[in-house]
């Protein structure tokens, strides 16, 4: 067990085997190689990706399929070391607050192998948007802008 300080959950104890190892840099955060996933709230679709080494660093992330069911991640854009697509956990980082329209980054998802808990961030060659709006108001379409989401 490991005791860490977190941005939103105070001091907590985590199981070593729950730690995610980042082999493929979260871009701009090359020093940050170990994270844990913490719940936002019961029933919330969001998770916090909390750095193990930096208490003040936490990202909000979400399963992109909750907000964009057509999302496809080509297997050949993720290294073979991460195993088959059936073993992946895919998360997108969210930007929420500071006056931004809440959005998630479909262009650069995080992919982890569920078994080894290793992975990282990948910039797709598909033109998915970096800021895809989260949960548009009811009545509006959840389809991607026309420049996104089509598979070549």
């Amino acid at each position, binding site marked *: 067990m490991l005791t860490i300080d977190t*941005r*939103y959950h105070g001091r907590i104890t985590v199981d070593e085997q729950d730690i995610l190892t980042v082999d493929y840099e*979260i*871009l*701009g*955060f090359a020093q940050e190689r170990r994270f844990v996933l913490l719940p*936002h*709230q019961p*029933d*919330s*679709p*969001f998770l916090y990706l909390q750095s193990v080494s930096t208490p003040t*660093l*936490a*990202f*909000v992330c979400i*399963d992109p*399929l*909750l*907000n964009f*069911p057509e*999302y*496809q*991640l*080509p*297997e*050949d854009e993720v290294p073979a070391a991460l195993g*088959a*697509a*059936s073993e*992946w956990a*895919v998360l997108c*980082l*969210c*930007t*929420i*607050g*500071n006056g*931004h329209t*809440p959005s998630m*980054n479909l*262009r*650069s998802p995080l992919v982890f192998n569920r078994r080894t808990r290793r992975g990282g*961030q990948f*910039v797709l060659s598909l033109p998915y948007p*970096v*800021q895809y709006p*989260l*949960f548009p108001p*009811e009545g509006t379409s*959840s389809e991607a802008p026309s420049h996104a989401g089509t598979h070549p």
Partner: protein
Amino acid sequence: MLVLTRKTNEALQLQEGTIRIVVLSIQGDQVKLGIDAPRDVSIMREEIVLAASQNQEAAESISPHELSTLTPAKVNPSPRPTPKSR
């Protein structure tokens, strides 16, 4: 934006030749470029820069209050297919 047309093996010079960009080959929609530049000139793929700056914004922007207002009730109720791959 300045637009120039170049052929394979033709080059551009920037800053009196301190930076040189050569078109090495063209295949379909892929262009292979060679770049000679001083060590202190940072050269990055644009999508990497954009991803890094979006990550920075994501890390700095979190508003737990606003996050709580994005409740599951507002979650698109569409069925959740498993990720497809090829």
